[in-house]
């Protein structure tokens, strides 16, 4: 293989893309627009929080210094929650009913006030609340946390037996049915989208670029020069890799600083994964362009190659949650490995060794696709 030919070819691919302003704008702008829309949708404010209150508090007598009257802080809290804001609907339920409703998605949170709630609060001079969040919309937990603090303070503020002048401590002990605290839908989606954009754009651009080479006859002319099939493939890969990495960088910066997505990992590992995705996409593009006669036909491969992978790659739904028969198919998708690697890097801060299994799988896919596409060109050449 001669880099005296590979690099001029890579340069030509870059020159062609630079000449195509519209495509250039699309590559770099569309991901930002889509990510923004996705971010907005995903982070939509819940218009009503449906709260279930499991009210078991039996109340307690205040200490003699506080007046000695019986008081039920649980009831007070429930009342003040109900009057706090119209965005909160409060239902009193028993524990079993509340649990079944939250699992059906009919409640966003359950607050459980145990029998000794008042007694404990008076004794500890602090409020401890057990809250279970449904968790699929992280925004609920954020909003509710604030409301609950205000309600609790309001409910007990007047009781000098509890609040000795200062604001009482309110502790929310949160559990999650799904997800966890500190967790944001976009945190979960962003790594997958970063991988997806690179894959999708490089796939579409290569298949169209290669189709043009075939249709315009430049591929025929290129093959009449001493260049080898593998040099054509490697040249294309070098040219598109440059764009894939620039795109990945722009998306990453925007995701982290523009959309405030949690990012713990190493940029290098993200780039390694992005690079591998780009190389796979180039080769799949070359391969699929063989089966297309015009650009419209190339577009038809997008649902096949891109959309199936979006649904099955764990981008939107975790592979573990999929039905058993679907999981092996999901693990046949290169994007699945990329998503898991990117997620581990960006959310958990894993290094290259820790995501090594996924990266090796991606290398394997890339190598297989190189052979596949080189074979496709050769077959065309001979005739």
């Amino acid at each position: 293989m001669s880099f005296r030919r590979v690099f001029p070819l890579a340069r030509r691919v870059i020159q062609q893309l630079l000449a195509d302003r519209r495509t250039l704008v699309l590559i770099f702008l569309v991901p930002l627009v889509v990510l923004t829309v996705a971010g907005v949708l995903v982070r939509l404010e819940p218009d009503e929080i449906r709260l279930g209150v499991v009210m078991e508090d039996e109340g307690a007598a205040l200490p003699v210094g506080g007046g000695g009257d019986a008081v039920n802080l649980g009831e007070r809290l429930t009342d003040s929650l109900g009057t706090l804001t119209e965005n909160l609907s409060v239902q009193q339920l028993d524990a079993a009913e509340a649990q079944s409703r939250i699992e059906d998605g009919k409640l966003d949170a359950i607050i459980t006030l145990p029998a000794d709630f008042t007694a404990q609060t008076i004794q500890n001079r602090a409020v401890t609340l057990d809250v279970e969040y449904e968790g699929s919309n992280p925004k609920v937990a954020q909003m509710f946390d604030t409301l609950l603090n205000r309600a609790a303070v309001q409910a007990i503020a007047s009781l000098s037996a509890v609040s000795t002048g200062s604001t009482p401590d309110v502790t929310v002990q949160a559990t999650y049915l799904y997800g966890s605290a500190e967790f944001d839908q976009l945190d979960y989606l962003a790594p997958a989208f970063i991988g997806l954009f690179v894959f999708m754009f490089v796939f579409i651009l290569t298949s169209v670029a290669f189709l043009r080479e075939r249709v315009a006859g430049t591929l025929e002319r290129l093959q009449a020069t001493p260049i080898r099939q593998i040099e054509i493939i490697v040249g294309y890969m070098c040219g598109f890799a440059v764009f894939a990495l620039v795109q990945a960088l722009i998306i990453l910066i925007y995701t982290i600083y523009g959309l405030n997505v949690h990012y713990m990992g190493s940029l290098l590992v993200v780039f390694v994964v992005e690079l591998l995705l780009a190389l796979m996409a180039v080769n799949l593009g070359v391969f699929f362009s063989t089966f297309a006669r015009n650009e419209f036909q190339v577009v038809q491969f997008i649902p096949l190659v891109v959309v199936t992978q979006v649904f099955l790659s764990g981008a939107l739904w975790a592979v573990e949650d999929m039905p058993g028969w679907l999981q092996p198919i999901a693990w046949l998708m290169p994007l699945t490995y990329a998503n898991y690697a990117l997620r581990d890097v960006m959310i958990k801060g894993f290094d290259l060794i820790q995501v090594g299994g996924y990266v090796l799988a991606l290398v394997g896919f890339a190598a297989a696709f190189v052979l596949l596409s080189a074979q496709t060109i050769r077959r065309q050449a001979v005739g």
Partner: protein
Amino acid sequence: MSYAVEINNVHKRFGRIHALRGLSLNIERGMTYGLLGPNGAGKTTLIRSIMGLVKPDEGQVKVLDAVMPSKDIMRRVGYMTQSIALYEDLTVHQNVAFFAAMYELEGDHAQAIREVLELVDLADRADSRVRELSGGMQRRVSLACALVHRPDVVVLDEPTVGVDPQLRVQFWDHFHQLNAQGVTLIVSSHVMDEAERCDRLGFVRHGTLLAEGSASELLERAGTPTLEEAFLKYAEQGPAQ
């Protein structure tokens, strides 16, 4: 001196289509050889096998004494395809420079590119995008891409299709200049009036060679006033070999 191109009993099938049926042909160096025949006669397959883009099922194609396909020989052959086959988004200079790099042109690329652009009279349009050029100019760029590496053999598939008469005259001037420098040209055409400009002609039909010779020889043997009629007469008689 050995031949520039030697084609020996070449067969090529594409599925049920028998494109070349035992075709043999020798082309001497430094001449312009015209391959004439109707569309579908096998001219393009013949040209592609000379270029090393098609491997014969049977028989042998030798270019400059090497059996094709040979990457070393491809460096010494130029190819102007039937379609314009250029990167339309790129400039004239970028296109020519790209093919110069692909052929691993020896020495000064810039000098070679300048010379070939002057040859096709496009030096002042070097920085124009190919898309913006007229069809005739695009043809000239295509020719420049086939000549930039100073090949010993140049294969031109229907180079003058859709070319206006003035440009056609210019092209033939270029071709004869190249012949004078010892370059062998192989030109395919289905237009008979082009043929008289070639040193030697081969009539191709149904994947075989019907007849061969200079234009005047072919006319004399057929006893017809025009090459068109001569072609039809040879076609009636069947293959020469």
